[in-house]
């Protein structure tokens, strides 16, 4: 089982961890009393934890290798198998549907509010999944389109009194236009270079919002954004949250519906071809420019829609909601969930947004946990929590 070499390796790893964490785990400086406390006992705990973690890590790595050797090629994720099985498909979907329909009536408002946030991230994740997962364009400035949507609603409402329902399609269009505007200059870039430029673009939008005072009210933000109305009827606060919850559910369903169709269409296949091999894709008659721009535009559309919902839900927005960390969180949702896999992204969004909300006590360690999770997923499940599975077709043999 555990080889001598592994024990030796784990021993050195534990030793290294002791050295590494010495300044924070052992030394404690009290700046008021001017004393330095050495907590030597911690060395033992760090050593044991490091040793144990290393052994476990090695064990799982070996399991993975062995699994690869035995050659189980068709490891289709459980969820996909459930959905493909006619018998389970409908009850499974019904159960999920009932859960989400009943959710705001079972749980208190606080939980509904958190669920709205998570569902907005599902939309954002599915949108970014088009750009990153399907078309393979690493976009680190995705939050800019989220901001476009949120500010579109806030400003159009402030100046022209336009309602949520009017702004929704307008912001979708604005998002698509902005996506194309970003896409055009970066057509020739890919990989790291594209990531850097889009990162810059995201920051530009935020800095504009922060500094163009007369336009966006600067860092003070825009307050009193009205919640959506129901044919002119404005709900009181509690009902309003439930109402927004159902709007988001509808939007998420719409997103899933469209994204699913796009994925298995002419245009969706072109995105994947572009991701897999740019030259071969062009040699097969696919217009690279058009394909890239549609990916950027469609991805941005859903971000803008998410932004409108976000503004309506929080009723106050300022540029601080649209920092680079948002982009990274959405990217984490896509990568950890499973690039190119809609179900994976949904699962990723729910896990990555809901878990930290309920572990408020550990909020400070959120980025640490994200980082650790990224490493673990990349090592053990490089295709994400639920990997994408391509559509299969059935054929009848034509007898000649």
């Amino acid at each position, binding site marked *: 089982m555990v080889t001598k070499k592994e024990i030796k390796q784990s021993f050195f790893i534990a030793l290294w961890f002791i050295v590494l964490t010495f300044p924070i785990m052992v030394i404690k400086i009290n700046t008021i009393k001017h004393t330095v406390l050495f907590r030597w006992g911690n060395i033992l705990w760090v050593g044991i934890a490091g040793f144990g973690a290393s052994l476990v890590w090695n064990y799982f790595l070996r399991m993975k290798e062995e699994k690869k050797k035995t050659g189980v090629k068709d490891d289709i994720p459980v969820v996909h198998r459930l959905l493909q099985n006619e018998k389970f498909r409908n009850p499974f979907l019904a159960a999920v549907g009932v859960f989400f329909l009943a959710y705001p009536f079972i749980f208190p408002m606080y939980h509904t509010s958190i669920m709205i946030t998570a569902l907005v991230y599902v939309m954002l994740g599915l949108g970014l999944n088009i750009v990153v997962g399907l078309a393979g364009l690493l976009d680190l400035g995705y939050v800019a389109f989220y901001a476009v949507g949120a500010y579109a609603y806030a400003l159009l409402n402030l100046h022209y009194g336009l309602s949520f329902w009017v702004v929704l399609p307008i912001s979708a269009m604005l998002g698509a236009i902005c996506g194309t505007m970003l896409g055009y200059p970066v057509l020739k870039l890919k990989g790291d270079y594209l990531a850097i430029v889009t990162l810059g673009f995201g920051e530009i939008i935020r800095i504009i919002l922060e500094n163009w005072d007369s336009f966006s009210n600067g860092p003070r933000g825009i307050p009193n954004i009205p919640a959506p109305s129901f044919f002119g009827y404005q709900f009181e606060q509690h009902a309003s949250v439930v109402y927004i919850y159902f709007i988001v559910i509808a939007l998420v369903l719409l997103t899933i519906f469209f994204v699913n169709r796009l994925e298995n269409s002419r245009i969706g296949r072109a995105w994947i*071809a572009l991701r*897999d091999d740019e030259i*071969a*894709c062009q040699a097969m*008659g696919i217009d690279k420019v058009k394909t890239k721009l549609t990916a950027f535009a469609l991805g941005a559309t859903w971000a803008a829609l998410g932004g409108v919902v976000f503004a309506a839900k929080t009723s106050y927005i300022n540029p601080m909601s649209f920092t680079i960390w948002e982009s990274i969180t959405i990217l984490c949702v896509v990568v950890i969930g499973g690039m190119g896999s809609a179900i994976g992204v949904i699962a990723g969004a729910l896990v990555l947004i809901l878990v930290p909300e309920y572990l408020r006590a550990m909020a400070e360690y959120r980025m640490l946990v994200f980082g650790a999770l990224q490493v673990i997923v990349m090592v053990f499940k490089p295709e994400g929590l639920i990997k994408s599975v*391509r559509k299969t077709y059935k054929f009848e043999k034509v007898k000649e």
Partner: protein
Amino acid sequence: MEPILNVKNLTMNFGGLKALDNVNIAVEKGQIAALIGPNGAGKTTFFNCITGIYEPSEGHVEITPPGKPTQRLNGLKTNIVAEKGLARTFQNIRLFEGMTVLENVMIGRHCRLKSGIISAMLRPSAQKDEEQKAVSDSYRILEKIGLDKYVNEMAVNLPYGAQRRLEIARALATDPFLLLLDEPAAGMNPQETKELDELIIWLRDNEDLSILLIEHDMKLVMSLSDNIHVVDYGRKIAEGTPREVKSNSDVIKAYLGDDSEDA
């Protein structure tokens, strides 16, 4: 009759390097033509020039598709060239790894389909029919090439020889009149090469295709080709039937070296 591909005085410069120097090559309809030459002679550069991956420095690339007027291809984008009916395969296999075999072929159908974003999302009946037709057309191509048993496999999981054939299937799906094959037999075993030989002849006879291929397997080239063009150091040094090329002294010199200079 006009040749379906007529390349005149094609020159390609990379900085100071002349990768192609005044190359003239014409391919007649229904012909299997071969482009041979030692490594680094400029064969793949030639393919890249006519398919729009490179823009040639000088010269003309003209096509005359069956039943259509003569057109110039210089400076057109790669995807437009493919749309005009020139399909190619690649020397090092370039399949779409994240897709199934069928989807790879369906990518080839892309430029013959019309549906856009809106119709993909709303899926009207015209789009459904088109999609259904694309699926069955692609499947028929796989049947012809003999890959139908792999239809739902991921392309990357296919055996090597099958991957090479899938490249040809994908190229066929673009409805070409001229097929450009870049070393289709590279890395194949004798059995696979023999099957490829049969496939290429079958394609010419039954699919109304003309074929231009780059190949190093001389046995294959000599048995297949109607006409062989030989390039060396970017210049065309010979052209003719397999028999003529075999006995051409310049060709022998290019492949085996020149005794007189060394002496």
